[in-house]
Every structure is written in C-alpha cells, then in structure tokens.
C-alpha cells in the first residue's frame, strides 16, 4: 500500500526520531510512505504571524505538488504542518477568489481534493486493526496522552476528536495495553513556537503539563507533535526550574510507543535521541486474545 507523505522540516531535522519511528512502523505494516516531490516548508507559525497570503501559499504549493504526483491521501505526522495544511485547505475551499489568487501565486493548480491525515488518523485507519497480529509486547505502563493545540483546534477546521478531553490517542494506547490516565492538561499549550524566543514562558507552560502528569502517576507522556516533544523533552531544565523539582518522565511519540509494542529495535525508533532518557522496559509479552471472555461485561465497559 502506498500513501502520500509530508515529513516537514522538523522531522528531517531536530525531530528525526519521529520520522524514524513513523517509517519503522509503516515498514512493519507493509505501508509505503511516498514523500511529496520537492516539498517545501509549510511556513509554520512564522508565516502566518507575518503574512496571511504567504502562510497559505507555502502549504498550497505542497498540496498542489502532492496532487500532481497523483496522491490522494497525505499523511502529515507533524501536528503543526497538519494544522497549516488543514487551515489552508479549509480557507481555500470556502473562498473561491482567494483560492484563485493563491493558485496564481504558487503558479500551480491546487484543486483541493486531497485527504489530509494526522498521525493518529493514519494509525486509526491503517495500523490499529493490524496491531493484534503483530504486537509482541504490551506497554503495561501508566501514560498521559498529551494532544496539545494543533491536533484538536480549531475543531471547525480540523473536525478531529473533541476539543476538550480528546480520546483518540488514549484509545490507541489502551489498545497497546497501556493505562492511559485521565488528567487535566491534555490540550493545554506547551508554549509552541516560543521555544527559542521566550524560553521562560515555555518553561512555565510545559512545566504545568509535566507536573500534572507526574503528579497523577504517569510513567511516560505520549505525544504526536514535534514542537510539543522538543519543548517537553529538550526544555526539561527550564521545566524543572519552574517546577522546582526534577522529573525524569520521558516524552514518547505515539509512533515510538507502537514501535515498542511491535518489538522494533529502540535505535530504529530513535529513542536514543531524546534528552530525557527513555528507561521504560519490562514490557509484558503480548498474547493475542482469541475470544472475548465475557461479552456482556465488555459492553458495559
């Protein structure tokens, strides 16, 4: 099976372990991810903070290139790129004049037919059903699924999961055998693009997120956004400074968690690249459940 793929700059650089783990589980599942030829940066926060048309043109060029390459589904693991792509698609769909104008700027014909999938939608659609057959371990840990902003907001553009207390990642983690906790900061902002320019703010916002998860006993935090990951992982000194205590809870991409359950080599998943070491081990070997033991009870749950 072939699917369109947009890695984005982070996955090619500072968050390459995210890319590595996406590729590793796709390979395990027999899915080929085809990158958009000659893709460019989506513009991220900088573009839409500075110039609206630029912020639409940069993603539109990629979307047009993907259509030219005959792709119908586009997997965009980076939540920021995903958000920019969806926003662009949404705006152009609802404003014909703007659509024409942007097509003129990018000198390409973007039609708007592409299905854009974030990493969780990718997992739900192409991976989750095959997990039972391929899982080698249960991630028998308490985890806090952290969604951040860009996967769930704005809902009217993304139309994915609910904006408060979303559940899709939790469902994936439960499938992997994890105990995903109910906590309060699932969709609070980590500080996002202020990582370099307002590091102290990031320390506070990410600090509150880490503190709540640790307080509720999470052994790891599961994320699906490279920005969230780098703030929560790389900015741990600032976070610990804000919280006035050290925490060693690792931040794991959901694709890495799946990779661990599939028994993929940790190096292949890029776990060694994290600043907060991923010490999680002693996973419970997984045996496929052949039959539902008590169907009535299942229904009640």
């Amino acid at each position, binding site marked *: 099976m072939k699917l369109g793929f947009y890695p984005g700059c982070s996955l090619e650089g500072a968050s390459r372990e995210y890319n590595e783990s996406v590729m590793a589980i796709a390979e395990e599942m027999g899915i080929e991810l085809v990158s958009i030829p000659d893709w460019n940066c989506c513009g991220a926060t900088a573009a839409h903070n500075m110039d609206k048309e630029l912020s639409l043109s940069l993603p539109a060029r990629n979307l047009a290139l993907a259509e030219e390459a005959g792709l119908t589904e586009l997997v965009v693991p980076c939540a920021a790129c995903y958000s920019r792509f969806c926003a662009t698609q949404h705006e152009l769909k609802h404003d014909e004049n703007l659509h024409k104008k942007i097509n003129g700027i990018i000198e390409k014909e973007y039609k708007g037919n592409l299905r854009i999938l974030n990493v969780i939608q990718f997992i739900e659609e192409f991976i989750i059903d095959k997990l039972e057959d391929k899982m080698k371990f249960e991630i028998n840990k308490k985890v806090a699924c952290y969604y951040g902003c860009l996967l769930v907001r704005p809902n009217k553009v993304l139309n994915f999961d*609910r*904006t*408060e*207390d979303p559940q899709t990642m939790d469902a994936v983690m439960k499938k992997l055998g994890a105990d995903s906790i*109910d906590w*309060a900061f699932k969709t609070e902002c980590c500080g996002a693009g202020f990582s370099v320019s307002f590091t102290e703010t990031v320390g506070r916002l990410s600090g509150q997120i880490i503190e*709540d998860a640790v*307080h509720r006993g999470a052994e790891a935090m599961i994320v699906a956004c490279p920005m969230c990951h780098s703030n929560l992982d790389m900015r741990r000194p600032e976070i610990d400074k804000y919280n006035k205590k050290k925490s060693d809870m690792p931040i794991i991409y959901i694709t890495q968690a799946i990779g661990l359950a599939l028994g993929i080599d940790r190096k292949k998943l890029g776990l060694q690249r994290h600043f907060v070491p991923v010490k999680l081990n002693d996973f419970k070997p997984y045996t496929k459940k052949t039959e539902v033991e008590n169907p009535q009870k299942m229904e009640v749950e």
Partner: protein
Amino acid sequence: MARIGVFICHCGENISATVDCAKVAEAAAKFPGVVHSIDYKYMCSDPGQTLVGNAIKEHNLTGVVVSACSPRMHEPTFRRACAEAGLNPYQCEMANLREHCSWVHERNEKTDDKAIDLVRMLVEKVKRNNALQPIKVPVTKTALVIGGGVAGIQAALDIANAGHKVIMVEREPSIGGHMSQLSETFPTLDCSQCILTPRMVEVAQNPNIKLYTYAEIESVEGFVGNFIVKIRKKAKSIDESKCNGCGLCTTKCPNKKNPNEFELGMAKRPAIYVPFPQAVPNIPVIDKTQCTYYKTGKCKICEKVCQANAIQFDQQDEIIEVPVGAIAICTGFDIKKTDFFPEYGYGKHKDIIDGLQFERLASASGPTAGEIRRPSDGQVPKKIVFVACAGSRDPAKGIEYCSKICCMYTAKHAILYKHKVHDGTAYIFYMDIRAAGKNYDEFTRRAIEEDDAKYIRGRVSKIYERDGKLIVVGADTLMGAQTVEIEADMVVLATAGVANQGAEKLAQILHVSYDQHKFFSEAHPKLKPVETNTAGIYLAGACQSPKDIPESVAAASGVAGKISCLFSNSELTREPLIAVVDRLAPPQYSSCTGCFMCQSVCPYNAIEREEIKDRNGNLVKQLAFINPGLCQGCGTCVAVCKSKSIDIEGYTNSQMYSEVDALLNF
C-alpha cells in the same frame, strides 16, 4: 359591475416614509372597476374607518381594498367597518404595503411600483369575492390542562373554580413539577413544598377536576370548542381504585437500587415507588424497566404484601377519549445536565452538579436531609463555586437566550449555602446580574452584603479535578480580565433552561408552532402572550420560555381567564374561510369524480362521503362533502383535487389566478 374603493394608509410614517402613498392612490384610481381611491395618515383610526364607511355608502361600493399593514393586524377592524356600512365584511381585502413593501425596501420608484402592483392584485381579487356568512359551532365546556406543574395546577384550579370541568394530564406519577423539587423560593425564601402542596391537594379534591397521572397525550383532533383528545394512561401496574396508599409495597420491594429521578440521581428508589412523600395522588407505580418480576418473571413481593390487592402485573396501557373545548399547555421545562459542558469535564466530576441538584441537597426532604454535602464523599464543602450562565447566552453551544431564572436562584443558593455552612465561602462567576422583578435586586444585594457571596464578573474557562479539589479557572473582567483560580470543594452550574423532553412531539400532535429551541410559540409576543396560533389552545409557564414561579402562575391565570371567556358562550363564531365542493345542476351534481384523494390527505378528518340518490333511492353518485365544523381551510384538498372541484371560500382558485394575472399581465 364592480365598484371598488381603494384606501391607502400611511401608517404614520411606517409606509409613507418609503412609499409615495398619494402616487399609489392616484394609480389605483385608474384601475378598471375602481371608483374611489384615497390615501390617509391612519386608516385604522376612527376617522379613517369613517372614511371607508362613508365611501361605501356614497359610492355604493361592492368591494373595498385597504392598503395598509398586515391583515393579521387590522383585517377584523376594516371588515367590521365595512359591515357597519352595510357591505358584506368578506368583500373587504387588505393589501400589505407595510411588511411586504415599505419595511423591506428602500424609498425609490421601484418600491412605489411594487406597492401599486400589490394594490392592483387585491383589486382584481376583491372583484371576485363572494358574500360569506360566519359559521356557528357549539362549545364543549371542558378544558384539558397538559402538565401538572405549578402552571398547570394554577390554570386547572382557576378554570375549575370558574365552574368549568377540567381534565389534567400529567406525564409523571405525581403532579407538582419542578416546583416540588425546590427547597426555598426567591425572593422570600419561603419553602417551596409548603406553598405548593396545598394546591396539589386542592387539585385532587376539586370535584370539577379529573386528574390523570402517568398519562400522556396520544392525539388531538377537532378545533376550538370541539377537540377530541386521546389520552394514554400508562399502566401503573396498580389498581388505583383499590390502593390505599399505605406504602408497604415500596418498603418491602427488594429491588431498591434504582436511580431516583426526583432526587436527580443523588439517591436510590425501589422499583415500585411513590416519587416523593407529598405526591398527589399518593399511589405508587411499578417501573417496568427495573422491576425484578418484569425482568425475570420472579418476585411479586409487592403483590404478597399488599393488603388491598391493588397490584396488577397484567395491567395494560389504556386509551381514553375525551371531548374538550380548550387546551392549556403547561408542560414546563428542563435544564441542561452537567454532561453538556466539555470544558467542565462532560459531567465526569461527581462534585460538579446542576442547580436542581443543589435544590435537592438544600431541601429538608432531600437525600442529605437538607445538609449541603458533596455527592462524591459526603463532605461538607467549605468552598463552593456557582457558575451562572452555564450554557445560557452561549450561541456556540446553540443556546443564545438568557435563561432568566438562574441569576435569582444562584443568589438564593449562595444565601442558603451560607445559612447552612456558616464558615463556608461561596463564589459566583457571573456575567450580568439580571434581577429585574419585585424585590429581586434587593435579594441579590442581600446575598452579597449580608450573606457574603463573592461575585466575580467573568466566565469560567475550565474546571478540572486534582487531589479531590475542583480547580475552577475563570477570569475577573473587573480586574483587567485577570485569571482567577479557585480550589473548590464543589461546583454548581446554573445550567441553561431548555424545552422539556417531548415538547416537539406534543407541538406536532397539537398543531401548534414552536421555536428553534422547541419552546412553544405564543401567537403574539406582546398582545397574545398566552395564546398559540391555533384557536382554543393556550400556553402557560416555562414551556414557552424559561420563567420563574410568579410569572408562570400569572400566565396560568391568564390562560384560565381566556378559557373562561371562551366557555362563557354556548356557541362560537368561526370565519367561513373553508373548503367547499362545487355543486352543479343534475345530472352532473358536481364536477367531483368521487376519487376521495382529498379524504386521504385532510389533516382534520373533515371530508365525508355524500351519496346522491334518485327518487327511488338508487345511488346516482358519490361526492366529497366537507364538514364546515371541522374544516380549517388549510387547502390541502384543493391541491390534490384532480378535477378542480374544491375551492377555499375567500381564496378561490379564480381569485388567486386573478391576482397572479394582475401581476403578470399588466
């Protein structure tokens, strides 16, 4: 030869500011058949009406077109004026130059042209009007009151005390409604039960009132003065004539762990139960969905202990058919539950409750015997947060209106809380304090000044639980929209008042209109606040929009007054604007072919079969016959009649075509 008079009204400036009335009058004077055409500032005024009357006599008019506001407003006025001048009132028509023209257009020539067109259409129509006579129908002097809350109780008692029969239908096993769940009432803090229960008992004892509880409206047919109502009496599994209300069955029932609706899930009740101690009637019902016998076929303990032999497991629903002359809708309201609020945890936190639940906690007869204790662990909350406007004034959640009662009951809750938990602190997040009403503002001041309620002007963005506390994150917009975080023990959401479950279905059964929020619509927001658009059907209380007790009671008495007026006559006069089947000379008798398509579509069952027989009694032809008492003039039959044999009087096909013709072929 038609002699038509045209009267153009300025409606003050309402029409004349936009439409050149003199020009319209001048143009109308030239229409064929128009012999008199004038404009005047207020045609509906006494001198205006005199102008019309005098013109009828002076010019010997055969038809009148008043070009003014909506006929809904003043058609009766001008028809009466015509009748007084000796013209059949149905020879008078109105062209709507206000709502259809001046209010919706800018002042320019095109607008004038449209006004002229509108007048021309009605001139052509009125030329074809027939003289009609009003229809007289008898009145059944029994009223149906749907809903046994405080509004229904008040309406029923007032109508019954005026000497008329009342049938009251209540969906629940007892009357009393939401008011019976309240602890104290604002702004006097008198006990809700204490003032309501005497009224409930009065309903049960009044010989003019027949009460059906655990019953719902199945269907309504007929029209004002002559409704036929089918009531479904749901099986209580109890023989009401035998039950003496001893309550032994409810205490002996082994299946006691069912959520108690009256206590809003904060207590349990047996499967056979009386909803609350003061229930009227004091007769239990068996909840078939919970009862062990109905679920497993075993138990029947209640039957064994019942000394009166009143338990009837095989009782079936019963349909009762009653004739009534008027209907009062008093079905009340509901409130949004806490699960409506994603940002407040979708109802997953036990200690976030709604206002009605707080009423039960504060009520002496409630699950905590009147002590404020939080549902999760029974602790007395020392810090409590009330959130006003929870879901109200929130278009994003689909509720843009103000629920009106929350400001007052939240102030009351804060007062009650302080009276019960002296060392506790109550915070109230609010947007505006809406306390318009007698002694209302004084009451909220009392909450603030005497009972130490801490009002914070701002909305709550998020509530989450941490270590057994509820962290309430809001803003104080009087302090530059600073974030305010309160670690509360309990949170009470003053959730939006919404239409009662089943309101839409009932509206459809009754053929009355309702708004986008499923609240019943009044016929006119100012002048017909308790009438519906359907004659003979009235509404009172919170089924119309959120209302407090005094308002509901006032509206209910208003309805009772209206119904008493209706019942003061032995017959009613109805507009003769009904469908008729044409009649021709024999041997055709009618162009009707007897297909009876009309019969199958008529929503009022007004169409009957008429048999035409010859002298020897042999059937010659079957025709449709429209019962003038039942027909509402909706015109559905006209639309389906293939032989074009049916016409609506006052709106005949030829009249309609002539209007269209006048517009198109000028």
